[in-house]
């Protein structure tokens, strides 16, 4: 009766032929080969092939050949310089994050991430713009507001638009504009534009903007009234 079945020996026979088995398994295989004639035959045939392969030697071309080969190699080697190591771009970014490619990638990434946020913020803080002057009031998208207080709270852009409306109504281009500091706040000043108007034009404007209505500040900070 065999101690280990043939199929188990066949599984490890390859390693046995190559001397890759631990001593405990070598002992098992050798015991089995002593008992089993068919496995022994297979082992002998394999061993024969391996021995035959090892006999297939190539003749040594001699020292002259080797000297010639090495000198030809070295001659071609001395004609060149070692090439610098080619590192792929993703490794450069990974290994040298603070090199210029790292900064470039980081900047691009930040811009890509922030752009939608910036657009969203701009959209959500968009101030309503006035639409037209109706009597003493400005008509906004959100409702009506009386002119004096409205003018003081106008942005530069809005003031310019209002100035242009006034000019359109007056039939004359108003020129020049700036800011005024009133109670620690900057207000758009349309008074320089009004300076260019004639007395009649100004009277006409004053009639249009009634009851303490202001188009900004005069010199000396008096309301146009």
């Amino acid at each position, binding site marked *: 009766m065999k101690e280990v079945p043939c199929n188990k020996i066949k599984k490890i026979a*390859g*390693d046995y*032929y*190559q001397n890759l088995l631990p001593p405990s398994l070598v002992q098992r295989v050798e015991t089995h080969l002593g008992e089993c004639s068919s496995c022994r035959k297979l082992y002998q*045939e*394999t061993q024969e*092939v*391996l021995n*035959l*392969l*090892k*006999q*297939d*030697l*190539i*003749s040594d071309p001699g020292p002259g050949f*080797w000297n010639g*080969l*090495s000198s*030809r*190699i*070295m001659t*071609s*080697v*001395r004609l*060149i310089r*070692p*090439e*610098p*190591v*080619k590192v792929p771009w993703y490794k450069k970014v990974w290994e040298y994050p603070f090199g210029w490619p790292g900064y470039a990638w980081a900047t691009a990434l930040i811009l890509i991430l922030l752009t939608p946020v910036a657009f969203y913020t701009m959209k959500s803080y968009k101030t309503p713009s006035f639409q037209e002057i109706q009597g003493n009031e400005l008509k906004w998208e959100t409702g009506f507001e009386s002119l004096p207080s409205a003018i003081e709270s106008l942005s530069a852009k809005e003031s310019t638009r209002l100035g242009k409306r006034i000019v359109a109504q007056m039939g004359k281009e108003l020129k020049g504009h700036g800011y005024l500091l009133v109670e620690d706040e900057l207000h758009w000043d349309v008074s320089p534009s009004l300076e260019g108007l004639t007395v009649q034009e100004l009277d006409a404007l004053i009639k249009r903007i009634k009851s303490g209505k202001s188009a900004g500040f005069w010199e000396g900070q008096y309301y146009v009234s």
Partner: protein
Amino acid sequence: MTDDQLVERVKEGDSRAFEDLVLRHQKSVYYFVLRILKNPLDAEDTVQKIFLLAYQNIKGFRSDSTFKTWLYRIGINQCNNYFRQKRNRDYIPLDEIPVADTRANQEGDFFDKERLIHLQKAVGRLPYKQRMVVTLRIYQELSFEEIGMALNIRANSAKVNFHHAIEKLKNWIKTSEP
């Protein structure tokens, strides 16, 4: 001085150290390439290319494999390129290779010589990868781990390829014998 130490010196620009590496490895690389290409002149050219490539790219060599395994890897790529470029070329038949069965000559054993010729023909019939594995294992005496690294396959796959090749050789030799 070990291969690794010589490689470090080459990286620092010492070409004499590279010459030491050439003298140390040219024989085994040449024999390997000759067994695969089966043409001494082409083998010589290919070995020159292999060492030249090794020198040019030595700064990219990392010690995760031995220098010898790395050389074989370059060698295998060059052999692949050779066959790709000269696919239609007529090769010298296997039995015309100037290989010397030294031992048979010494002993004058005609029967062994005949069997050796059968074996050489059988090895030539093996699939390319199996022939590579047998050559690297039997003649270059590389471990299966090293063969795996050189061929870019797993060590176990190299082992399986080797055993399949031996089984095939065994059967072919058995059937070709009178």
